[in-house]
């Protein structure tokens, strides 16, 4: 079974530039998550999709971050414009069924973003 795919693996941009990350979850997984992991911290949930609907985006900085999962499969996360403090690893995860409810999340390898 293929795992969660993410691209690119690494990205270096200057502040105020835009960047987009892509995630393809495990086939058949209804729920998709984007996390931000800053160095030395645990992953922090940015947004959670159930199929193509948003379940939770309470911690997403909506003035600069946006995400979509139009067809309920793959997803993109965009930052526009980027700030220095956005430097982090962006992890995508998916789970089989409904959000929460004792679901195990499977993580992709992450995209490491460096904002200069």
């Amino acid at each position, binding site marked *: 079974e293929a795992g*969660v795919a*993410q691209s690119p*693996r690494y990205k270096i941009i200057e502040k105020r530039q835009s960047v987009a990350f892509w995630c393809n979850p495990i086939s058949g997984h209804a729920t998709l998550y984007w996390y931000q992991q800053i160095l*030395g*911290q*645990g*992953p*922090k*949930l940015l947004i959670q999709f159930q199929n193509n609907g948003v379940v*939770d985006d309470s911690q997403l900085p909506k003035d600069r971050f946006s995400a979509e999962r139009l067809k309920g499969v793959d997803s993109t996360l965009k930052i526009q414009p980027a700030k220095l403090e956005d430097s982090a690893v962006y*992890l995508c*995860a998916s789970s089989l069924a409904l*959000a*929460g*409810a*004792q*679901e*195990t*999340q*499977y*993580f*992709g*390898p*992450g995209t*490491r973003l460096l904002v200069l």
Partner: protein
Amino acid sequence: DQQVKQNSPSLSVQEGRISILNCDYTNSMFDYFLWYKKYPAEGPTFLISISSIKDKNEDGRFTVFLNKSAKHLSLHIVPSQPGDSAVYFCAASDDNDMRFGAGTRLTVKP
């Protein structure tokens, strides 16, 4: 807000000995707990989980213990192997949310 805390940023043990990683949480609504293992340049991988209706779950060399009254869980690895060297995250969830600790870097020395 740190609802899940791993107070030890690092742990070093000798090969063959027991590794004990600890995790504390504050939200009494959490009812499902997981441990993830993360190697450098990879995403976290699921290791073991426990539901709040249990106090122990075992899978090979890995055992997770849950003390609900103390809001504390621990991961025991026996015997520890050099390949276990990684960062271990504990996570706690309720119906709506999952929170992660900051991680503990385990080093198992040959």
